[in-house]
């Protein structure tokens, strides 16, 4: 269905700009590509535009300038059902997990299938048996096989983020966006979540675009990085080329690359 002859990049962002209604300029002339199967990390201080960038890719936000192509298809101006079709192909997880807290874990995972579900049953929270089986399989995969009936807010932060990953997998996505997926987790749990994402990337070839602000995590999991500063792309390259000078370029002369940052 999708052109993926190895030449067309998974994501192509060209000259992307975003000005919020209040007048805040969050992105300016950002251009980069993500090849199929890459794990691209987006670095930058808080407020540098990472969330804005990710949200322009699945069009939770409408960028004000430039364009985004996904597998060669222009998605910048999609509306209505075409926009929903795009979103079905692009899964996203968030810093705050964003589960529906008062619903069960199972319903949360099933909500990943909303894009392909029939409207009326879905409004009554009912899903076909096949979808329920699939949701159960994904719950097992993230290590929560018997928590389906718990209320989402009864789970710990790390467990909630795993449920969010299961919900994302439920979409059977071609692209995986993660907006600081471990920033509100206990440091000890960060690698567990990152490894789940790594496995999706390495073993199933899922393309990942992930914002992170922890250098250790970036150099360990990403295959390539880009860095934002004040909404502009200031550097891109491989983790092994990332050094002190570039660090100061991104985070300012005052910053210290503490290896125990956040720990």
């Amino acid at each position: 269905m999708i052109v993926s002859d190895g030449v067309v990049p998974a994501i192509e962002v060209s000259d992307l700009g975003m000005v919020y209604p209040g007048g805040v300029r969050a992105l300016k002339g950002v251009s980069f590509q993500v090849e199929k199967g890459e794990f691209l990390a987006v670095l930058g201080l808080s407020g540098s535009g990472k969330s804005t960038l990710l949200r322009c890719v699945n069009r939770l936000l409408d960028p004000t300038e430039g364009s985004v192509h996904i597998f060669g298809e222009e998605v910048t101006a999609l509306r209505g059902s075409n926009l929903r079709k795009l979103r079905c192909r692009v899964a996203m997880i968030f810093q705050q997990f964003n589960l529906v807290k008062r619903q069960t874990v199972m319903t949360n995972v099933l909500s990943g299938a909303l894009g392909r579900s029939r409207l009326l049953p879905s409004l009554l929270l009912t899903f076909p048996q096949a979808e329920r089986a699939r949701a159960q399989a994904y719950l097992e995969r993230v290590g929560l096989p018997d928590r389906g009936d718990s209320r989402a807010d009864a789970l710990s932060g790390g467990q909630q983020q795993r449920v969010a990953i299961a919900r994302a997998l439920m979409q059977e996505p071609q692209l995986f966006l993660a907006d600081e997926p471990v920033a509100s987790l206990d440091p000890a749990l960060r690698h567990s979540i990152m490894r789940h994402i790594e496995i999706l990337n390495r073993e199933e070839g899922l393309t990942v675009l992930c914002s992170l602000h922890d250098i250790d995590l970036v150099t360990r999991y990403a295959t390539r990085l880009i860095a934002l500063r004040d909404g502009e792309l200031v550097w891109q390259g491989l983790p092994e080329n990332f050094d002190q000078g570039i660090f100061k370029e991104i985070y300012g002369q005052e910053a210290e690359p503490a290896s125990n940052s956040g720990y």
Partner: protein
Amino acid sequence: MRNEQDIDSPTLAARFFAQVQVVGIDALLVGTSFLMVEFLFLAFSGRRSATGLLLTAEGILDLLHYGWIAGAAVLVAIAWSATHGIFGTSPGRAMVYGLAEEERDLPWSQTFLGWFVAILIQLTFFSGWLITELDLVSFLTKFSKAADILNGLMHPQASILHQGAVLLVQTIFLAFMATAFAIPVAFVLSFPSARNLTRGTWASRLLYMAARTGMNFVRAVEPLVWALIFISWVGIGPFAGVLALWVHSVAALTKLYSEQIESIDTGPMDAIAATGATTLQILRYGVVPQVIPPFLSYTIYRWDINVRMSTIIGFVGGGGIGYILKPRVDLGEWGEVGTLVLLIAATVWLMDIASAKIRERIV
């Protein structure tokens, strides 16, 4: 990163509008104080009307020079605005721009504004005393008549107990039906009445404006007035009472519900939208689960209010226990009135306890 030049500086129109606001508020306050001064002056001048009687408060209100005073007030307001460097911040300026830096730490007695507000409060009390015709003498010396009523209330008569109890049942059902029918309508209306769900398109913003304006109007009209309207529509009786309380409840619940929707966490909405869900699915999954418990709590609170209202809606012919209470008050049957008042008090008291208990459980 927020740059100063990224944020629009206030335009000329915006500054002009703020200035108009300042002068408007000042003119209103200065004008009010002038009017009260003139009122007090006339009240104590001993002037008599054409019939030779002392002027009543209403009579004096009729005589005040509204036009002249309004003009003078606007002039004073403009003058104050032009000289705020000398006389300090005016009330209107304080509301629109906040207090001037050097006035923040001063006690009220050292600013012009402080004295103005103090005098305004004094004037309000003095003229209020006269306008509402407060009469301490009657209050303290003419208790004996009211004592009859209190005596009657203390000796409730069983003769009306049966009829009262029957109508009490009607009263409670009246409140119940009004609340129950209000829930689905208010539920549907609360979504277009929520600011955070109606930013997207012009159509949704228009819908928001329409829903909000309509509901504010409906809410501003008291249930007793609605009862009069519905009585002439469907006739005297409990159905008119149900309709009156229903209309008012829809408006009140819509406001409470929509405020609840406005305060939800938008994270789950984003996450559901990101799965490719439709708008209805986003509302069902991202919004509804968050608002159900507070909605329930507000609804029970509303039923509580409706039970109180339904006891008096009968005064104008809207059915329920008030319908037999009114004639007994008019006839001075204080013993029977006592029975009915006790019935009402007991019901309201029980409702209060029940609703508090249920709400405690839900939240």
